[in-house]
């Protein structure tokens, strides 16, 4: 059993942060990946998470939609405790179906796209709206076509993922996540598996998405993107967030010694 401690009451619904983490801990066996992570992301905010590989940023991102279970601390998404239901001062572990339902409100984009290779682009987009939201085919298809237009791939609806370039696949993956009309989007190193000349097109789509007011949490090594698009940048180091501030300040003028070394190395 995980040791989830009751510390305080659920935050009030007015001005609830979209994501709130309170001393989140996570271990894989003996390896403590997250030691104590505190973070708050407001609705409409774009937060980039940077740090060396193995610093825990991807693991933390995966905790937000419960792909990984936390071992300690508390984590809320839009006022709801991730993976649990609060009744009085007890936390009941959610059933798989309820976890699945909550995940529908959180879109996720993976480093390796993870498109369904046996389905066409359009089928990739409408699969979850049809199965999970029980939408009629034509409603889901209309929205899917609209989203494909927004990511610049309207002509590829009938193509299979393997017929597309990496950049195109990642744009399809973004459209697939958006097709569920999420209130929060998580990006796990979305450009790390791409050829350099394809990174720009994916970042452009993400920039457009940020302009629409979507709440986004992005694990990335793209400092330019972080500086231009993010409202805040947080720096992960050995399972903690050791620097958290406005994008320009964290990247251009970091306070912490380790942040300075990292920013210098990746630039």
């Amino acid at each position, binding site marked *: 059993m995980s040791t989830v401690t009751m510390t305080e009451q659920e935050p009030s619904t007015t001005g609830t942060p979209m994501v709130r983490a309170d001393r989140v801990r996570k271990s894989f066996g003996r390896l403590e990946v997250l030691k104590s992570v505190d973070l708050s992301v407001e609705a409409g905010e774009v937060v980039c998470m940077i740090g060396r590989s193995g610093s825990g940023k991807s693991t933390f991102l995966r905790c937000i939609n419960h*792909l990984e279970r936390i071992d300690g601390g508390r984590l809320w998404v839009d006022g709801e405790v991730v993976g649990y239901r609060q009744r009085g001062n007890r936390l009941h572990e959610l059933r798989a179906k309820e976890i*699945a339902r909550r*995940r529908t409100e*959180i879109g*996720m984009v993976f480093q390796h796209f993870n498109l*369904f*290779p*046996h389905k066409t682009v359009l089928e990739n987009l409408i699969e979850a709206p049809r*199965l*999970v939201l029980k939408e009629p085919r034509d409603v889901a298809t209309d929205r899917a076509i609209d989203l494909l237009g927004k990511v610049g791939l309207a002509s590829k609806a009938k193509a299979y993922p393997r017929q597309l370039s990496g950049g195109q696949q990642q744009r399809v993956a973004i459209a697939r996540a958006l097709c569920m009309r999420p209130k929060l989007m998580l990006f796990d190193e979305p450009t790390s598996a791409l050829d350099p000349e394809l990174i720009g097109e994916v970042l452009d789509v993400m920039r457009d998405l940020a302009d629409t007011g979507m709440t986004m949490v992005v694990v990335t090594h793209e400092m330019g993107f972080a500086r231009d698009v993010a409202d805040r940048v947080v720096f992960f180091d050995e399972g903690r967030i050791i620097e958290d501030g406005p994008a320009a300040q964290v990247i251009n003028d970091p306070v912490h010694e380790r942040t300075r070394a990292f920013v210098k190395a990746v630039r």
Partner: protein
Amino acid sequence: MSAPTLLPTESEEEVSDGLTVVPQRHWGRLVSALVILAVGVVFARSVVTNERFGWDVVGTYLRDVSIAHGLVITLELTLACMAIGVALGALLAIMRLSVNPVVRSAAYLYVSFFRGTPVLVQLLFWFNLAALYPVISFGLPGVELDANRLITPMTAAILGLGLNQAAYQSEIVRAGILAVDPGQQEASDALGLTRLQTMRRIVLPQAMRVIIPPTGNETIGMLKSTALVSVLAVPDLLYSAQVIYARNFQTIPLLIVASVWYLVVTSVLTVGQFYLERHYARGNRNLPPTPLQQVRRIFSTHSRLSVGGQR
């Protein structure tokens, strides 16, 4: 014999700069081909001239009514046993991958038991079930079935071969599921699909590419394994042939009749498997060419040098 030329338009053995191209001579290939052809001719000649093959008898019995009935029984058995094998095998594979240790162990024990004993022994066990449980009640009150009447030779055959097949099939399905990229499961989770939806819509269709080829092998194997049920006196293809040759002593011709039919059905199954594989390969850049496409490719190729070049 003229050597093949570099360019079809050039005169033989000469290219534009006046040099003669001498192709490599493959003496080894020539000799081995001649040896094989010679052996083939000798064998074919003996098959045709040896009267004991009894080709006229083969011709007569190939369309015999009881042989046809036997063939139908064999096909029914194959279909029924494979249906049980595939359905139960998929269930066992999913059980083997369960997080529940009891469920996992149960599937594991099933597989080790049915894989670890000869299928012929299992067939005889099912056939003699009445000796073990004269009355079958499934542990339910009010249910009293006479085992001797319930377990006919045909049900014993279906149970024996089907349950045995499930053990092998489960390993095939399990390998297929494990071959699917774990990222597919994660993406499905993140989209809010339930585990059942993910298995049915995302994982199994992709696992099919790995599952189909060995399952095709197993189906062909099953067709031949059904010959074992002749020990239970089920009138399948082999048993029907045996009944006839016990009467007229034309043993060899009737075994040939049975073999011809087994060969015909396995050939048909092989073709079916090809198209099934092709169906589940969709989404791949290179689909395997159909026989028609292969023939076209051969005829559209003029020179050996252009093979794989322009197309």
